[in-house]
């Protein structure tokens, strides 16, 4: 099976700081890769490269068979949810859906279904900039899925939002992945690992892969070791 994402020896620097230091990864259809790491570990830098927002220093990145340095064709089959509020804040909810659908060169037919699935009916006339965090993320996810993408890049998808919105978004994410889509989802809270099929632990510019269970155990063992260290120091 051909991977949807194939990254080899990717390096990225921001200013003089080395953010990604020769990492490699592959992602296949039907897979949800959780990109876990502390704040500042380089998750957003990696996700921005994968979504074609930022250029990178060296290495090779192939998405949906395209070398992303040479072609932007992969963007037609890409959905993006950013860490920051990146929808058009001056447009209303429905206008955002409509505008992004047109920019994605897709029809408006999918909008009613997405509005229903993400329960946005009551908010259609509200400016996106004024939505609460949960509704905003529901809208972001709906916009990302407008073109029925094969690949979804999501940064902090359900961080700090209400449980209802979390549940709704995770349900749709699961539906997307089981229907053959692939997702890279960046987060910094270990409990979200459970919703992924594989976890890429990003630390010091490198990725280490775990199953969700292993990632949880690794986290707990790190916590334990810190507690023991601080316990020993206190004693």
């Amino acid at each position, binding site marked *: 099976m051909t991977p949807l994402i194939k990254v080899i020896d990717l390096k990225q620097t921001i200013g003089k700081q080395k953010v990604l230091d020769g990492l490699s990864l592959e992602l296949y259809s039907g897979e949800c890769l959780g990109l876990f790491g502390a704040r500042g570990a380089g998750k957003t830098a990696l996700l921005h490269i994968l979504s074609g927002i930022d250029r990178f220093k060296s290495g090779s990145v192939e998405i949906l068979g395209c070398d992303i340095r040479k072609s932007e064709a992969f963007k037609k089959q890409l959905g993006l949810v950013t860490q920051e509020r990146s929808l058009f804040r001056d447009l209303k909810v429905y206008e955002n859906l*409509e505008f992004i659908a047109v*920019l994605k060169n897709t029809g408006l037919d999918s909008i009613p279904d997405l509005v229903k699935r993400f329960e946005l009916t009551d908010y259609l006339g509200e400016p996106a900039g004024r939505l609460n965090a949960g509704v905003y993320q529901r809208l972001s996810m709906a916009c990302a899925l407008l073109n029925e993408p094969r690949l979804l890049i999501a940064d902090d998808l359900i961080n700090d939002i209400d449980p209802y919105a979390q549940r709704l978004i995770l349900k749709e994410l699961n539906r997307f992945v089981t229907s053959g889509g692939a997702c890279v989802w960046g987060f910094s809270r270990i409990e979200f690992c459970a919703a992924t099929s594989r976890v890429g632990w990003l630390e010091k510019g490198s990725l280490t892969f775990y199953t969700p269970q292993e990632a949880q155990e690794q986290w707990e063992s790190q916590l334990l070791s810190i507690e023991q260290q601080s316990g020993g120091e206190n004693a």
Partner: protein
Amino acid sequence: MLRQCLAIARREFFFMWRDKSLRYILLAGPLLGLLIFYATYSPQVLKNIPAAIVDLDHSRAGQELIKNIQAAENLKITAYPGSYDELEELIKKGEVIAGVVIPEDYGKEVSLSRQARVEMIVDGSNMIYATNTTSAMLSVTRTLSAQTGVKVLVARGIQPTQARAAYQPVEFREEAWFNPTLNYAYFVVLALALNVWQQCCTLAACMNITGETGARSWYQIKALGLSRLRLFFSKSAAQIITFMVIALPVFFLAFVVCKLPLRCGFAVFLLFNLAFVIALHSVGTLASSLAREAVNATRFGMIIALPSFLLSGYSWPLEAMPPYLRFIAQILPQTWYFQGLNFLTFKDPGWAFMSQFFLAFLIIAAVCYGTAAIIVARRT
């Protein structure tokens, strides 16, 4: 592609309309400018200029002179100070703008048919007042001087008709073309209002690129793989249309309500404005591409827009400027615009002459848009 362009343009209209401050600036700025300037300059001439007369002579001839000055058209004698120092104090306080000092020996000199000297003082601290006052005072003193001269000649035995003829050897007939009444409002009101308009447009155009690349929604646009050319072309088209639309009420008020002159056809005038708006927008877009953030873009806009009218040669002739300033002025579209505006509204010199203005706009637009495109391609 067309669907995308239209959607981007539509969103740009929404953006400008929903941004309250931008909406008010664009809509109200130029209109308010026209109304204020028209109200200010509509009297056309300065009347009732406050003046004082110091009569140190108290002779009959002096009294006669005072009567003549009192009858002067645009002067209003508001004080009769007793001394030169008192007059100075009144001018210092701004209570009077001009003063006439009749010397102690005025009556004696006139009766002896000798040359009498009357001092005319003008407050030069306000150029507009000073120029108008001098002109008002000169019209009185010229007439008085001639009358006195005629009297002297008559006293020396020359026939009155001959004496009068001696003071009018050459008749200078003034004839102002294109603005026969030398109406200052015609000259300045539309230009000042359009100056406000071009300043608002420049500031808005300076957000063309940074307004988009500096916003978080830029991530969405980049991830969509949308052509930057298509994006900025569509945005620019929407902005240019908006700039033209907001000028229409100003033109209506100026030419239909206020009856300011427009010698050329309205279609030609609109075309000229459209060419200018495109050139102006290109300058704003270039500034926007150079700016790192929205605040910088606004600063660039102000640096370009504010002095451009002064440099345009409208309020002070280009020929009287130092060569380096003239060069800077000529690369600004505002210079070509305000010069062309004067030609079109007063003279309508025809296509052959006006084509140089259109060519200038075209060159400015090509250079600025081209450079901005290169910068944007490299940066984003």
